C-alpha cells in the first residue's frame, strides 16, 4: 500500500514535468511567429536560431504594409481611398467572420428551438439529414458550390464564403441541444397568456439559450476566420482576399522572407487569439455541449 502510494506520487510528479515540457512545445510555434515578426533580417537569416532576440524592429510590418494597395472598402461602384492591402484583408476577414457569426446565431437559434420544442411533420427526417450532413467532409461540396456561386454572381465576393458557412448545420444541432433544456411549462404559460410565437421566442427562448448562442458565436467566428480551403477557392482578386489567403500568397511569392511572412501571420493570428483567450470559458462549454448525445 505504501509503495503504491509513493509510486503514484512519483507518477504524478513525472507526468506534470512532462506536461510542462509539452506545453512549452505547443506554445513555441506561436512564440516563434511573434518574435520572428519583430526580428531583424540578420537575426532571421542566421543559421544559429536567435532564441531570445535582443533587438526588435518594425521593419517587417512596414514592408508588409507597403507591398500592395487596395481600396479600403468597395460598395457597388463606390470605392474608398487606397490603403495597404493587408488592412483591406483584415477588414474583409472581420466582416466575413462577424457576418457569418450573426447570421448563424440568428438562424440556428430559431431552427434549434423549433427542432427541440415543436412536434411537426418531417421533424425526424430533417434531424437525420442534419446529423448525416455534419458527418460528411465539408470540402466535397466545394466544387459544386463554385458553380452555384458563379451562377448567383457571387463568385469572388466575400458572400461566397459567408453563405455556405451559415448553411453548415452544426449550429442548428448545437442550438437544439441547448433548447432541450427549456421547460415546456414556461412555453405553455406564455401561450396561455396570449403571447405571440415571435414574442415567446424573443422574450423566453432566446433569453434561456443565451449561453449556447455565446458559445456558437465564438465557435463560428473562429471557424470562419480560419476556414482556409473555402476562402482559397472562392476568392481571387487582391482586394477581396482574407488575411489568411493574403499570407498564403505572400508565402508563395517570397518563400524565404520569413520576417515578412511572420509579420503577416502575427496579424492574422492576433485578433483571433485575443477573442479566444478572453472568451475561453464559453467556448469550452460550447464544445462539450455539442458532443453530449452526439
Amino acid at each position, binding site marked *: 500500500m505504501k509503495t503504491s502510494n509513493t509510486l503514484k506520487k512519483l507518477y504524478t510528479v513525472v*507526468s*506534470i514535468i512532462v506536461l510542462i515540457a*509539452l*506545453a512549452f512545445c*505547443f*506554445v513555441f*510555434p*506561436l512564440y*516563434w*511567429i511573434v518574435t*520572428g515578426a519583430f526580428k531583424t533580417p540578420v537575426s532571421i537569416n542566421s*543559421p*544559429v*536560431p536567435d532564441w531570445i532576440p535582443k533587438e526588435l524592429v518594425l521593419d517587417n510590418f512596414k514592408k508588409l504594409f507597403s507591398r500592395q494597395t487596395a481600396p479600403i472598402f468597395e460598395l457597388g461602384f463606390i470605392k474608398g481611398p487606397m490603403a495597404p492591402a493587408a488592412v483591406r484583408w483584415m477588414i474583409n476577414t472581420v466582416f466575413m467572420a462577424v457576418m457569418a457569426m450573426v*447570421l448563424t446565431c440568428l*438562424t*440556428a437559434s430559431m*431552427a434549434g428551438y*423549433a427542432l427541440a420544442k*415543436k412536434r*411537426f*411533420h418531417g*421533424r425526424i427526417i430533417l434531424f437525420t439529414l*442534419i446529423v448525416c450532413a455534419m*458527418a*460528411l*467532409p*465539408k*470540402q*466535397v*461540396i466545394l*466544387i*459544386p*458550390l463554385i458553380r*452555384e456561386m458563379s451562377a448567383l454572381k457571387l463568385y469572388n465576393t466575400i458572400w461566397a464564403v459567408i*453563405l*455556405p458557412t451559415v*448553411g453548415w448545420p452544426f449550429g*442548428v444541432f448545437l442550438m437544439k441541444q441547448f433548447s432541450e433544456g427549456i421547460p415546456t411549462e414556461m412555453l405553455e404559460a406564455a401561450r396561455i397568456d396570449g403571447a405571440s*410565437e415571435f414574442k415567446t*421566442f424573443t422574450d423566453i427562448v432566446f433569453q434561456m439559450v443565451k449561453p449556447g448562442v455565446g458559445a456558437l458565436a465564438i465557435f463560428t467566428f473562429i471557424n470562419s476566420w*480560419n476556414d*482556409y*480551403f473555402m476562402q*482559397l477557392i472562392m476568392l481571387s482578386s487582391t482586394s477581396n482576399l482574407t488575411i*489568411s489567403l493574403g*499570407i*498564403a500568397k505572400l*508565402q508563395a511569392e517570397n518563400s524565404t522572407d*520569413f520576417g515578412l*511572412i511572420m509579420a503577416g*501571420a*502575427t496579424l*492574422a*493570428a492576433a485578433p*483571433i487569439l485575443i477573442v*479566444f483567450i478572453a472568451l*475561453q470559458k464559453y467556448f*469550452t462549454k460550447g464544445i*462539450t455541449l455539442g458532443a453530449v448525445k452526439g
Partner: protein
Amino acid sequence: MAKGVYTTRSKELVRRETASAYMFLLPSLVFFIGFVIIPMIICIYTSFFDSTMGKDAKDVFIGFGNYIELFQDGIFLKALKNTFVIVIVSVPVVCIFSLWVSSVIYNLNDKVLSVFRCIFYLPVVTGSVAVTVVWKWMYNNYYGIFNYIGKGTGILKTNINWLGDERFALACIILILLTTSVGQPIVLYVSALGNVDNSLVEAAQVDGANELQLFWKIKWPQIMPTTLYILVITTINSFQCFALIQLLTSGGPNHSTDTVMYYIYYMAFKMFRYGYGNAMGVVLAIFIAVLSAIQFRVAKER
C-alpha cells in the same frame, strides 16, 4: 363524441404547430438546402459526367467512367494510401495523447487546468495558415531550428531537407497535424473525466481496487461515448488534411504527401476536371461514412 372533438382539435393543433415550426426553420433551411444539400446532390450528379472546363461546352454522360478511371489512377491510389497512413497514425495517437493529458490535468485546480487546456488549444485557434508558415520555417533546410537542434545534439550529421525528402515529408506533415488536432479532444476528455460517477469510484476504492483497475473497470466505460465522438471527429479531421499539404509540399516530392483532399483540389482547380474531382469527393465521403459506421459498431459491442 368528446373524443372526436379532442382529435379534431389536436389535428388542428398539429397543423398549427407544424406551420409555426417551419416559420422558425425557414431562414436556416434556405441556407442549409441552398448551400449544403443542393451542392451535395450536384456533386453526386456531376460525378457521372465528363465535365471538363474548356474542352466541351456541354458535359458528357459517362456513367461510372470517372469511378473506373479513379481506381486505375496510380496517383489517386497513392493519395488514398497516404490519406489512410495519416488517419491510421493520427487517430490513435490523438486519442491516447489527449486522454493521458486530460487524466493528468482534470483534477488540478481550476486556474491551472484552464491554462493547460488553453495552451493545447492554441494551435487550433492560431489558424492553419499561420501555423503552417511557421512550421515551414522551422523545417527549413538552412534556417530551420530542427536541423540546428539535430546537429547540435549530434543526431544529424548534415542538414536534412525535411519537406523535400520523400522519406520524411509525410511524417513531418503528420507531426503538425497532431499538434493542431489534440485541442478539442482534451477539452472533451477533461469534462468527461470530471463527470465520472464518484460513488462508483469510491465503492471500488473501498473494495481495494488499484488505480489501473479503477481506470479500466470504472472510468473507461463511462467515458466511452466521449471516446467514440473523438474517434469520429478526429477521423473526419485527418481525412480532410489539406491546408498543410497545399502550403508546404503541394503533394510532393514524388507524390509522397498527396492526399485525397489535395488531389481533389488539384484535379478540379488546376486541371479543371470537375466531374472527376466530384467522383473523388463521393468516394471520400463513402470511406468516411463506412469508417464512422465501423467505429460506432465496435463501440456499441463493447
